């Protein structure tokens, strides 16, 4: 049976936030900072206020002194005295139409006193750097103190096993190299939007494409200092997430505006605002030191990552304000000494947030590239090097955790068995590269309610939004299978936040597994009452066995030695899976991940220059089109052990992660140049080729 949301999505009748209309609705537009760092000297809104249709012009001074965030609460709804990045909200205009709001916004005159800015994380952490926040440690949820380096957002330092320095000393070969990844954007096609309304009883209502509505409710309750029960988040379809639809974004501002004007307010960002001013992928600079003995057995791995956190820390949900992907470095391998260091710095650039497996694409690019460099130094085949170090079932990983099984070897061999060489254009050089990623599935907390209706049908009320993965269909199918009834007899309803106790939100590839765990519990409770009436269950994350998914990617490339152009001939992903609820949706998740990994590897760069995003439209920030995406091959390796009723494990953040290293390793094999900086553009490859006398073209004056 097909996805339950498919017909309405094809016809365009599914309601997204920008499709919702409320009585008395008015529209907002935002005036944003043109400076990375400046003091606001004067705001003159008189001529804007006089325009037809303008309801209100609101500045930071009109709002109470409060800040919001997912963990660290450091974000103001509107800048008050100081702006901290190009694109920061300074003034909001509310009007009868969007056009009137935008016209009035263009009439607001703001005078600034530009201040010295810090634009990269290295200089931000220097002792004499200008401070992005005068007292960053004073914000609620801050994880730094007054004695920390200026502009530190967060720091993680973890060591496991023996001494890394000793491990590197006794290695037969080591690699010590720095890899960089640029800032990026999620590239969802639905720009951020929010409709806020306050009813006569003072309850706050939101229609917003937010993938973790119960957490959003808590974040807003903290901001407004109210009971979360006063806030209701209504279900709407989410037009792409990839991590970017997880923060409060403009909800605090829209609620403030709705309160001030006494009417519902819709703010729908223009796409250039979304690219330049909303949460982005953290640019990373990652130093890897890794060593192995003469047989190729790893002796130590040290990863030292520095990320650009931008102007606000509040877009990261971890209480530690870190990017948890750093902890996955080397996670597929037996490593006797492991050291992980990550620092995130405040800078006067757009804020960093979560993007599909946050931190992992950056760190896995670095570590899996370094492993190939190590293999070359040892004279060992890169595949063989990995074979000698992959964890096997029963082994404890470097963090001391025992997973129920390790299927890396099986997944690797499946990838190699499926690989068929692709034809190469005449005169181009062929290369293929491999990279491996291993990710754990954490189902987290959720809740759901099952009801047997009078006519025998079953209604399932769930807290989870549909971000596009097909999760509502997964609920329908899982419940139907569990009860042995037709899928058509199961109705799935996403409740508003008033309906159910809690859910962690969509993220961390958790949804299918969480649904499986919740359905298993619900069935148990329901059986006890004879499969009649209503049962509501709350799932907590305790006591869940550690299951992981391996993903082995092989990239085949052809490189033009004259120009440096890289053609990816095929991306193959072998994926370690348990049971699959919806094979087609599962396949498309994996294909979509590969396409996103491809974009990250060879195309995408937000091009932040002097603090300003210069790739400010989708014509400049190029994401892959149907013609760009290379042939994709997905190889499933069934038989793994999963979680919950459906025996499933996560799939959403696998194939996008190892792609960049697989392509970089393939390019290195093809033309002998090692690209340590993403994206792997023709220009970059060319610049390396001209430095290798025998490999490539002569440099030509341009």
């Amino acid at each position: 049976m097909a996805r339950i949301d498919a017909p309405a999505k094809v016809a365009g009748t599914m309601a997204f936030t920008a499709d919702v209309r409320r009585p008395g609705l008015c529209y907002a537009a935002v005036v944003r900072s043109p400076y990375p760092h400046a003091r606001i000297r004067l705001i003159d809104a008189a001529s804007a206020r006089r325009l037809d249709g303008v309801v209100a012009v609101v500045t930071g001074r009109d709002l109470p002194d409060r800040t919001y965030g997912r963990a660290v609460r450091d974000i103001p709804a509107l800048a008050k005295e100081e702006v901290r990045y190009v694109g920061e909200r300074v003034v909001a205009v509310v009007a009868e139409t969007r056009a009137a709001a935008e016209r009035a916004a263009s009439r607001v005159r703001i005078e600034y006193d530009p201040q010295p800015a810090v634009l990269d994380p290295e200089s931000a952490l220097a002792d004499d750097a200008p401070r992005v926040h005068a007292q960053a440690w004073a914000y609620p949820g801050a994880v730094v103190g007054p004695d920390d380096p200026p502009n530190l957002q967060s720091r993680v330092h973890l060591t496991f096993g023996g001494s890394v320095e000793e491990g590197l000393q006794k290695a037969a070969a080591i690699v010590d190299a720095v890899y960089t990844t640029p800032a990026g954007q999620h590239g969802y096609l639905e720009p951020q939007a929010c409709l806020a309304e306050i009813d006569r009883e003072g309850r706050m209502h939101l229609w917003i494409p937010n993938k973790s509505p119960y957490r959003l409710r808590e974040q807003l309750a903290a901001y407004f200092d109210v009971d979360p029960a006063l806030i209701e988040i209504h279900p709407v379809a989410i037009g792409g997430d990839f991590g970017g639809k997880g923060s409060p974004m403009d909800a605090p501002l829209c609620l403030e505006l709705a309160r001030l004007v006494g009417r519902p307010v819709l703010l729908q960002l223009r796409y250039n605002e979304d690219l330049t001013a909303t949460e982005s992928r953290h640019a990373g600079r990652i130093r890897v030191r890794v060593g192995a003995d003469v047989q190729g057995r790893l002796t130590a791995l040290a990863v030292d990552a520095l990320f650009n956190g931008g102007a606000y820390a509040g877009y990261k949900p971890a209480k530690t304000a870190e990017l948890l992907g750093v902890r996955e470095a080397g996670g597929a391998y037996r490593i006797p000494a492991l050291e992980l260091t990550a620092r995130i710095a405040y800078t006067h650039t757009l804020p960093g947030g979560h993007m599909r497996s946050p931190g992992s694409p950056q760190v896995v690019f670095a570590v899996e590239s370094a492993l190939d460099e190590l293999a070359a130094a040892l004279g060992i085949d890169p595949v063989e090097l990995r074979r000698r170090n992959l964890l096997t079932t029963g082994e404890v990983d470097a963090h001391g955790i025992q997973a129920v099984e390790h299927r890396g070897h099986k997944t690797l061999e499946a990838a190699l068995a499926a690989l068929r060489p692709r034809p190469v254009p005449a005169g181009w050089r062929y290369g293929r590269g491999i990279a491996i990623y291993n990710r754990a599935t954490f189902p987290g907390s959720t809740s759901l309610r099952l009801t047997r209706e009078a006519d025998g049908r079953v209604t399932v009320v769930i807290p989870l939004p549909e971000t596009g993965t097909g999760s509502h269909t997964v609920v329908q199918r899982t419940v139907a299978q569990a009860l042995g009834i037709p899928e058509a007899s199961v109705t799935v309803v996403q409740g508003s936040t008033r309906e159910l106790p809690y859910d962690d939100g969509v993220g961390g590839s958790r949804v299918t597994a969480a649904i499986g765990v919740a359905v298993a519990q619900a069935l148990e409770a329901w059986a006890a009452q004879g499969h009649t009436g209503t049962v509501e269950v709350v799932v907590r994350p305790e006591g869940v066995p550690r299951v992981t998914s391996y993903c082995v990617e092989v990239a085949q490339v052809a490189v033009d030695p004259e120009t440096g152009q890289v053609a990816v001939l095929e991306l193959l992903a072998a994926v370690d899976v348990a049971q699959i609820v919806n094979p087609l949706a599962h396949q498309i998740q994996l294909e979509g991940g590969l396409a996103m990994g491809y974009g990250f590897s060879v195309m995408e760069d937000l091009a932040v220059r002097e603090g300003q995003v210069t790739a400010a439209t989708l014509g400049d920030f190029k994401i892959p089109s149907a013609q760009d995406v290379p042939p994709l091959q997905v190889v499933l390796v069934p038989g793994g052990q999963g979680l919950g009723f459906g025996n499933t494990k996560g799939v959403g953040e696998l194939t996008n992660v190892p792609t960049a290293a697989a392509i970089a390793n393939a390019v290195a094999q093809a033309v002998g140049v090692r690209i340590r900086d993403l994206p792997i553009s023709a220009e970059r490859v060319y610049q390396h080729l001209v430095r290798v006398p025998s490999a490539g073209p002569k440099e030509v004056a341009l």
Partner: protein
Amino acid sequence: MKREIHYELNGNPVTQEVTPETLLLDAVRQWTTAPKEACGVGVCGACTVLVNDQPVSSCLYLAALVDGQTVWTADGLVQRFPRLAQSFVEHEGLQCGICTPGQFTAACALLLENPHPDEATIRHYMAGNLCRCTGYAAIVRSIHGAV
């Protein structure tokens, strides 16, 4: 400076007041939610509609230009191209759904021009309709499945 225009939307006569700068996207969205505003600069295809059966980016097209013309959007096209619509459902040529009406509309235009496109033709024709979710293989399979 408002002016009344008359056009046919999904086979039905429509009369609407527009100004010279009113975009077709905003005009049509008074009646239907099918075309979506995304990039706003004509590169992503989420706002694709058919004007006289030609695909246009309605975010770059003036509403005044459709006076006396015919306009089709995805919610109407599912009736005209039921086989293609069903193929998008069966092959799950969609995930989040925000680009889907535009993908479907562009695919209708492709089949009007070329009822039997091969994969390379499909990918070339559909390059103006971005999708961040699926990686496109499912969309190509959906179109192929209706050929």
